[in-house]
């Protein structure tokens, strides 16, 4: 693994002005994410994990601090299409077929018809959706829809993949399956992945680095470098190393909870 940071955040602060007064969503967040890392953000609701991901994506602007993505500001990185973003819900356009949905970013970015076709086919195979190109979203299960939304984020070959609780709404079995597939996909594409989750096993199973966050104000309480090997069968979750990391994550989450 290469040790050049692709994303760096230094003393990031973000305060939202709401009707109930200011909400301190991020406080003094500093972090380096290296190329090819799989980094998870875990913490209770309101800890700022999604906000941090949105700051990386240039969807939120920090009130203070510095953040750079590929050496650029997040806005510039967004304009140069540095990342693909996967949201909590698949958010496929109901009036487009699965193929049409995956083609959406390619149309917007002005790829040629032939290139669009080739890329759609390639990423659909990558997420095991070959043959579903002409179906409409409502004809697919929730897990398949989320896979299509991942394919959509992969279609334009950004180096960074940002995922905001992409499997949160799916049941345990489907989630396990998709986690396994996501790891394979990561190994094959060597992308840098930022992944937000509520689930301790999911974070530990997927990540090379786990960032534990806590709320009010949203901040980082622990950063854990996972000693697990890159090749991870599902039953690694029963290994002592896995359980040890999961414990440390849980302790980190508890420590952040003293204020309520």
């Amino acid at each position, binding site marked *: 693994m290469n040790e050049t940071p692709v994303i760096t955040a230094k003393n990031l602060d973000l305060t939202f002005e709401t009707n109930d007064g200011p909400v301190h969503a991020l406080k003094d967040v500093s972090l380096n994410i290296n190329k090819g890392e799989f980094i998870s953000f875990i913490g209770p609701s309101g800890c700022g994990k999604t906000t941090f991901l949105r700051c990386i*994506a*240039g*969807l939120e602007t920090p009130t203070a601090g510095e953040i750079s993505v590929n050496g650029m500001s997040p806005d510039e990185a*967004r*304009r140069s*299409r540095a*990342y*693909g*973003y996967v*949201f*909590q*819900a698949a*958010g496929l*356009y*109901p*009036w*487009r*077929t699965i193929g049409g949905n995956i083609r*959406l*970013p390619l*149309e*917007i*970015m002005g790829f040629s018809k032939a290139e669009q076709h080739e890329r759609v086919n390639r990423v659909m195979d990558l997420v095991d959706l070959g043959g579903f190109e002409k179906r*409409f*979203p*409502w004809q697919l299960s929730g897990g398949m829809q989320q896979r299509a939304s991942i394919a959509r984020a992969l279609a334009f070959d950004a180096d960074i993949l940002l995922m905001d609780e992409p499997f949160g709404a799916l049941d345990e079995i489907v989630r396990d399956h998709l986690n396994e597939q996501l790891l394979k996909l990561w190994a094959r594409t060597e992308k840098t992945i930022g992944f937000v989750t509520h689930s301790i096993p999911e974070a530990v199973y997927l990540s090379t680095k786990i960032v534990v966050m806590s709320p009010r104000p949203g901040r980082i309480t622990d950063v854990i470098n996972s000693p697990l090997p890159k090749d991870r069968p599902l039953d690694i979750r029963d290994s002592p190393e896995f359980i040890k990391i999961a414990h440390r994550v849980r302790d980190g989450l508890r420590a952040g909870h003293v204020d309520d």
Partner: protein
Amino acid sequence: MNIKGIIPALVVVVIIFVIWTAAVIPMNAHLTADQAQRDGFIMTPEAPRDRQEFLGLTLAIKNPEIITMTYTLVRPRLPSPHQVAIEMYETIFTKAPTSRRSLVYHAWVTLSATLLGFVIGTTLGILLAVGIVYNRTMDKSVMPWAITSQTIPILALAPMIIVILGAIGIQGLLPKSIISAYLSFFPVVVGMVKGLRSPDGMQLDLLRTYSANANQGFWKLRLPASMPYLFASLKIGISAALVGAIVGELPTGARAGFGARMLVGDQYGQPMVTWAALFGAAITAALLVAILSFIERRTLARMGMGATA
């Protein structure tokens, strides 16, 4: 629609016809008694002035021989269903469609104004909605006026429009179409504003992550997302456009169209003509809405969204 879906609607129609048929007797009893007396029947009471003291129903019970006659008056207060049916049959099927006595001719006159007005109104409505969604100033300024425009009684406004346009030499189809457009743009504005704003934050954020420009956001997200809203509005808009065209025919003594027929029937004591025009207008409106529903189902099905209304 399957048979089970039609039955409730049919039941309502049957009930309306039963009430209508029953109402013919009391509504026409006095006129019928007068006519019967002139024809040599003996009525109770005998003096027409005394008969005014009684309700139509009471009169019919006192003089049961007039009951069947209430259905065949030449100039009834309330025509019976079969009289209206005969009038419609004769004016639709036995007259050349180019004749002034043909209801098809009058239907076309009103329909052409309706369709032109509908196109103008819909275009205006969509343009205003786009302006409202994309421009803060228009958002703040246009909507209150659009709502205000609909609070002015169209019956008061229609003669002014016709007269003013007539004064500058615009006559015929266009003034009526403008009244149609005036009524039909509003539901389109309201529906399209809602439709263009229907994409949620996540769908908009997705386009931001692609650095899509406003143009792409409109054509690839907002416009397709607004389609179900547009069709719901179009169905309201086209009925409003038809009402507008008819209202446009009333105040100036137009010589053709459903509105003109209603007026003529009223002024020359030919209720069957008025009623035939009323039914003609209702059937036209139903057909227009049915055509739009068909296009809606086809379009939304092809877009993978299914019918929502």
